[in-house]
């Protein structure tokens, strides 16, 4: 695959991913494999680029005081171990199975997007002992209303182990698995959407690093291919976040819902045809 084509695919993936508040991986892997790249190499490259996009956006969110650092550091213990497990699974699994799994994740992400279309967050009235001991609470500035929103996380005893599974998906498929993480943060731990999205972003960096180390040790990181992918995804994400501000939320969600269904169907069909 030529440098220019790889760069173009990666810019598009980074752009679309950022527009939907996701990493580029969910678009990048279907696109790279469509143009003939082996799925395991595509997964390894995608996971490496995820470190760049997540760190870039996490830096801005942390400075805006939206991210809960303590929560992130507690949860990344689990996602990191999950990603190591996931990456090892990828090395031993048949490529066809990876297509099915990726298709499944794309459909589940579409379902999460649909389920969260009328999100309404209510602060948790009670906090369990473990979450309290872990000091999992905070407040963030809401720019629209100018108010400070206070929150307390709950059920961290359940959130942690579930995040292990999100880490497995991330390491296994080379994606940030943001939709899955946000779902756990929202539904299980009762966090406000802004905090769950931004904290998930912070966690992804460490998660992706542990998976990438496994892929590097197994010769799946090809620097010649990594350069256009990293530069393209970072550039695309930079542009995508600027467009996102101008587009109505509803339009972005609808676009993404359709895109995820389309990519999921395409990947599943390729899996059925024997990749």
């Amino acid at each position, binding site marked *: 695959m030529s440098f220019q084509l790889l760069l173009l695919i990666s810019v598009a993936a980074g752009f679309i991913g950022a527009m939907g508040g996701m990493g580029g991986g969910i678009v990048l892997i279907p696109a790279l494999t469509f143009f003939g790249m082996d799925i395991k190499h595509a997964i390894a490259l995608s996971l490496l680029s995820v470190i760049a996009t997540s760190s870039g956006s996490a*830096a801005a969110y942390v400075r805006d005081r939206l991210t809960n650092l303590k929560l992130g550091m507690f949860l990344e213990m689990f996602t990191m171990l999950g990603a190591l497990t996931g990456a090892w699974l990828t090395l031993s699994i048949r490529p066809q199975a990876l297509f099915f799994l990726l298709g499944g994740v794309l459909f589940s992400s579409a379902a999460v997007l649909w389920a969260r279309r009328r999100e309404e967050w209510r602060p948790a009235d009670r906090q369990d002992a473990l979450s309290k001991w872990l000091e999992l609470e905070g407040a963030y500035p809401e720019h629209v209303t100018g108010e400070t929103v206070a929150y307390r996380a709950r059920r961290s005893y359940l959130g942690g182990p579930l995040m292990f599974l999100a880490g497995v998906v991330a390491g296994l498929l080379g994606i940030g698995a943001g939709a899955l993480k946000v779902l756990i943060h929202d539904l299980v731990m009762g966090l406000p959407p802004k905090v769950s999205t931004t904290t998930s972003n912070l966690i992804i960096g460490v998660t992706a690093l542990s998976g990438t180390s496994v892929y*590097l040790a197994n010769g799946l990181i090809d620097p010649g291919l990594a350069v256009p992918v990293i530069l393209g995804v970072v550039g695309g994400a930079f542009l995508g976040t600027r467009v996102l501000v101008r587009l109505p939320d509803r339009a972005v969600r609808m676009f993404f819902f359709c895109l995820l269904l389309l990519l999921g169907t395409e990947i599943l069909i390729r899996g059925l045809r024997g990749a």
Partner: protein
Amino acid sequence: MESPAAARPRTSFDMDTLVGTVLSTGVIASVALLSIGIVWQWIAIGKLGLDYTLPRINVVRFISGEVLGMLHEGFGPTRFVNLGIIVLMLTPYLRVLLSMFYFILVARNYKYATITAFVCTVLTFTLFLR
């Protein structure tokens, strides 16, 4: 409800600033190194793109190889590209490492110092994976 973050004093140096600075600097440095590598190659041979692969190697070997190469053989496009990949991979690692020291030395929060030390230990193990 009390709002701990709002009550938190916004000093010139705190955990958010530290983490934010480490992450943004790492990504910018990595993108700069990769760009230098690719532009150098383009100028040298008139073709975009590098065509080389890495052997099965762990992160620590990869880093030590590049540092030794830098000292003995100097710089070239592939050196910059490899350094760019190394800087990118070390960015989240450095974030965890500095957070751990922040929890120990500045915040004196030993609960989170232990949590970050665990994350740091496992990440260090992954850097030695073969």
